[in-house]
């Protein structure tokens, strides 16, 4: 079987997913998220939908926002405060890695069952999307560091975007652009909150956020 370019680059994303399960340092995790952002935004290029001028501009805008602006804003937000900190795992790295492997197997199995006509030429598209989504959720739940949680959210959004590449055929770019702007604004607000958390509590460990609970 000859792999097409989409599957080839998605293989790297799957590897980066595994990497993010095991990585303990925040800067590393940010670069992983940036890499995934770049890949998911260029995938529609290779899917063979007719590329119009509007489509090109939109892809470049997505690339800029997902691959550069969003990771950069997180990086800048934490530059002074917690750059060399660990992600404070609730589930350990080895156990996380095992979860990651299991997840990729499950995602591949699931996407074989689903039998989606529109993306059937691209074996890895759906498994990668599911893997990104679940990894994002995993990071949200299994890491106490607030920055790692935001990165998990971004990873989830990347995964949804990848599922949505089938959707992008029918949607107007203005709609997709709206979604992108919302995500961007959301991450910006999270970055501002991160800075404030750091200033108020002198740390970004969410275990400190415990005053409001029943």
């Amino acid at each position, binding site marked *: 079987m000859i792999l097409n370019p989409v599957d080839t680059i998605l293989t790297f994303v799957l590897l980066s997913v595994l990497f993010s399960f095991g990585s303990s340092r925040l800067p590393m995790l940010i670069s992983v998220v940036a890499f995934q952002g770049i890949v998911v935004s260029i995938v529609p290029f290779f899917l063979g939908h007719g590329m119009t001028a509007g489509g090109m501009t939109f892809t470049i805008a997505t690339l800029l926002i997902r691959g550069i602006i969003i990771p950069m804003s997180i990086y800048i937000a934490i530059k002074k405060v917690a750059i060399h900190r660990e992600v404070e795992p609730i589930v350990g790295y080895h156990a996380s890695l095992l979860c990651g492997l299991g997840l990729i197997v499950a995602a591949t199995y699931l996407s074989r069952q689903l039998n*989606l*006509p*529109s993306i059937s030429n691209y074996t890895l598209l759906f498994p990668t999307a599911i893997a990104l*989504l679940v990894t994002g*959720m995993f990071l*949200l739940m299994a890491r106490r560091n*607030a920055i790692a*949680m*935001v990165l998990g*959210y971004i990873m*989830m*959004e990347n995964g*949804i975007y990848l*599922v*949505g590449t*089938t*959707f992008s055929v*029918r*949607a107007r770019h203005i*709609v*997709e652009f*709206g*979604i992108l*702007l*919302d995500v961007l*604004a*959301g991450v910006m*607000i*999270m970055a501002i*909150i991160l800075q*404030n*958390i750091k200033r*108020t*509590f002198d740390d970004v460990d*969410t275990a400190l*956020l415990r*005053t*409001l609970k*029943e």
Partner: protein
Amino acid sequence: MVEIIFIVPFITGLFAFFVPKQIGRPLLVFTGAIHLLLSLLLWKNRPEAYFSDYFAVTPEGLLSLLVISLLFFLISIYTIGYLEASKIQAENIFTGFMLLFLSTMTMVTLSDHIMIMWIAIEATTLTSAPLIYTHRSGASLEATWKYVLICSVGIAMALLGSVFVTLAMDIGQVDAPLSFSALTQVAKSLDPLWLKAGFVFILVGYGTKMGLAPMHTWLPDAHSEAPSPASALLSGVLLNCAYLGIFKTNKIMYAAGLNDFSSLILIVFGLMSILAAATFILKQNEYKRMLAYSSIENMGIIAVGTGIGGIAAYGAIICMIHHSLIKSSLFLSSGNILLGYGNRLITNTGDMVSRMPKTFIAFFSGFAGISGFPPFGIFIGELFIIVGAFRSGRYVTIGIFIAALCVIFAGFANQIMKISFDKFDGTIQIKEKASMVWPQYILLLTSLIFCFYMPDTVYQTIVDAVTAVGGGLR
């Protein structure tokens, strides 16, 4: 041109960031008045949207819009007094985001395109987050963090659900615009499996925002930490906006003949919310959190009613309207209590009946209304839901429903009695100004009037809205 109604608050909101508070406060009321006027005009004329691919005037949207307009106008009047009495840094940011929040919520009520709906609902999260952080304390920071993170992740699920709906179109080989109204017409040819998956994800996603258990954890924190006018908006109208997303998707499900599936899920989530509220309201020691749990309860009631269908769906819409009116009045009154006693804890309040008599009247009648006493509308709504459940033979559901409502009433009444009649030795820190009690009276009065006399056009709009999900006064 329908779109002007959310463009106006958007522009004034941006403007409000750059003006001092002497201009910002009147601007808030002024925009509220214009908004109310515009939505009344919209009710009367029902024009076509300019961008008809993305926006449409629907009966359920009209109902929410009217509630939003009326509430915002009254809340903006209250806000002036509140801002004078409380110390808020950077007031222009508060006013600006209040207006942007209004704009995004209006956009939700008018959106017809599935993705525009998502964009608008996510935008409500982003514009309301700074409101919760207004007091700049550690606790409010924590509430904001939880709110933004939980709601963004939840709403991301709704985006995934919306994408699944487009997959259902692909597989069913449907070529239609991606709007709720178009999809409702072609619902039969959508792929049922993916439509179901889409509905579940959309329900979980918007359900997070609506405050359905077990995704409700952000709600009590956000409602208790936000300044009271913002809490009133969050509880009174934001939750309805999220419900609108679920309601419109349910319309597609009903048209596709999958309403058994969607009813079951709505009822399960609804009952879970009512039970969660019942558990937490009993031992609650902060009055604003107690009101927040009551909102979770009412959202549960609305979900159950929608799920049962028939006359219960009509009851759910009645509950939605009256919950907005009564709950926002309660949150505004709780603002007076907070300013007067300077404390959030129920144990540090008391004797409100003689210390703050005007607020007491509003708060106590609000309590009577929200717990379903006859002269207020929630009573009628809940009655319809119970009748509807008996008609469709859902005895277990309604058994749990009624039992939980009794528990909630007991817990609620206990706390309200403490606030109203317990001994209190301290001093009250504010005077009860007219502008800080009349908005509550008007809200409660509106609820009262709607209970005895409902204009024909409102009645017809409610019937139009619920017919699409298999409801009606039959």
